[in-house]
């Protein structure tokens, strides 16, 4: 099964994989070879790609989609970093900033909730990366 991860800037991964785990909006989702066609909404979190030789790559992705068809898993996301590159302090700061945003109207509250959830997920990923 091929796995392709694309950001607006470049294609970050394009390799044969044996197993892919992606962070969907409401929990992790695993894709093996021959998976049925799916379009899934991604949340923020860790994507684990297991390659054919058994090695694992961990990526942090933030929003976007995963699409599987014809044995190709395509990850479309705005941001994708190797987990090791996540900065714990920057993630903490981002969360603080998100919490400070105003929630003066239903729309603003919604935007704030989105930002906070993303920042929390990022912090969680950064903490996990620090432990690894």
């Amino acid at each position, binding site marked *: 099964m091929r796995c392709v991860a694309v950001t607006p800037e470049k294609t970050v991964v394009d390799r044969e994989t044996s197993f892919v785990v992606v962070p969907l*909006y409401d929990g992790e989702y695993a894709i093996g070879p021959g998976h049925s066609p799916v*379009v899934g909404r991604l949340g923020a979190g860790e994507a684990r790609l297991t390659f054919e030789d058994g090695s694992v790559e961990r990526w942090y992705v933030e929003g976007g989609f995963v699409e599987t068809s014809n044995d190709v898993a395509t990850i479309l996301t705005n941001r994708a970093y190797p987990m090791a590159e996540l900065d714990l302090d920057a993630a903490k700061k981002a969360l603080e900033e998100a919490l400070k945003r105003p929630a003066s109207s239903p729309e*603003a509250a919604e935007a704030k909730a989105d930002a906070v959830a993303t920042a929390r997920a990022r912090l969680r990923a950064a903490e996990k990366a620090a432990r690894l």
Partner: protein
Amino acid sequence: MAKARALDKRRKSIAGIRKITRTMELVATAQFRRATERAVAADSYSKRIVRVVADLARAGLEISHPLLDKRESSRKAVLLVLTANRGMCGGYNGGVLRAALARLEELRRTYDEVELYVSGKRGVSFLKYRGWEFAKVFTNFEHKPTFEEVDEVASELLDRYRVGEIDRLDVAYTKFVSISKQYPLVETALPFAASTATDDEESSENAGESPFEFLPSPRSVLEEIVPNAFKAKMFQCFLDAAVGEQIARMIAMKAATENADAMISNLTRTYNRARQAQITNEIVEVVGGANALS
């Protein structure tokens, strides 16, 4: 001697200028290549997004989203103008600014308030001269705008639009079609044009059946895809502007170099002629003097 020396001096200074324009041309060529590669990469992302939207349409979902709806109110509009930080690129800045000014006047007539976001020093100085005030100025976008930087601007505008602070967003930039065709364009970015999403021909052909299962639901996927498509579109605008700038500079500098070449050869000819005339003159003087003595 005076004339010949003056000509030689001029020739030398033009040769110096030619060196500069030639270097700028080469730099622009290299940056243009890099910028094009990035534009192509971004294009592949946008194409995939469009494909997902096509799949959504095939699943029988009506494409509707708050970002796609036209606003009734006309309080505040934002115009984002993308120009270069530097000149020496022919009509590039002028073209964009002319288009931007026309739209600016139009917006001012229909909206109570118009905010200006300007990227590039050239645009800033021009619009300041014209007496406009800016809400925001960016000078960090050079030949290589990163998604991170663009996302910051796009997210801010998107948030302000979502909460109803602004009712419309227009972008004035240079559209890149091919290496031989770019033109200044003012587009409405918010409300987001659904046409970019639904002009796919495939979608109408196999309408009604979609092999895809949507997680958690087609509507939720749509909710995520519209802001993403908007950001991708904004990124594309910045990349197009960067590519357009490099091409414009490349062409302008090529013309300048060629012009310098023509001037140098002209000056060399005039210089040689002046020198020859001077030598002839001196010989005539020497011969005349000798004749007078004998």
